[in-house]
């Protein structure tokens, strides 16, 4: 399955969103995730099943005024 993660093409065998995030992001890090520009709450990551060519965006907090 191919996915776009933060605009980069990624080959992935992870069908569950939670598995993809576990593989990419340290468990300590608090992130927000959107699939095809719909925010998916953390509580729904394991139920969220990914499809070929889905666009996944992973956001983090940074310094800002």
């Amino acid at each position, binding site marked *: 399955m191919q996915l776009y993660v933060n605009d980069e093409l990624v080959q992935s065998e992870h069908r569950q969103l939670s598995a993809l995030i576990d593989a990419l992001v340290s468990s300590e890090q*608090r992130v*927000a995730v959107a699939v095809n520009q719909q925010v998916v709450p953390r509580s729904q990551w394991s139920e969220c099943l990914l499809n070929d060519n889905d666009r996944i965006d992973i956001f983090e907090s940074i*310094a800002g005024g």
Partner: protein
Amino acid sequence: MSFTIAGHDFSSRLFTGTGKYANQEQMIASIVASGSDMTTLSLRRMDLKSGSDNILKPLQQLGIKLLPNTSGARDAKEAIYAAQLAQEALGTNWVKVEIHPDPRYLMPDPIETLKAVEELVRLGFVVMPYIHADPVLCKRLEEVGAQCVMPLGAPIGSNQGLASKPFLDIIIEQSNVPVIVDAGIGAPSHAAAALEAGADAVLVNTAMAVASEPETMGKAFKLAVEAGRMAYESGTGQVQHTAAASSPFTEFLKELS
């Protein structure tokens, strides 16, 4: 001296931002010295290769309230998306709405801001809109449920101070929600002037972050905001065109002749 936004009490009338500091140690020291109990953060898409600078942990250890902003949003739709992401990333329903499509002056778009605020209030957010010092817009935002307004003193990061002062005065006079002067405050005297004029609070970032001594500057802002508020509560005297003697020296001169 405390004040309230959406039922949350703040002991300090100085809100801060986390941008532009040379390093995290200086940022933390400056925010602590300022006494601020709410500070802003932004969101961005993670760089999955280089990892992150993990700014959250030291801020959470401080116990300070975190206020995500929608910086980077160019219209209402993007701001709402950013607010929803921030809610997930930070676990808060508070958001500072900033919509500035033009990177040169970073002027907030009033029409998109009003649309975004109306929708975010409907979705249950506590919304703090960053706007031009426009008294009419402030009333419109209040009507759609903004819990405060954040008019600018001058362009973001410009250090020009309260360039919009006559309009801030009108906003403060008319507002039924807290008024927080945001942007352009370049020196503690600007912050003091805003509080003296009756603003409920100020938000300061650049002036603290780019100081040669950010920690000391944080303290200077703390004192300025406290002094400004005290002066407001004590009632400053009226401005007059002519002199009004504070000593009865004319009597003294008569006695000499």
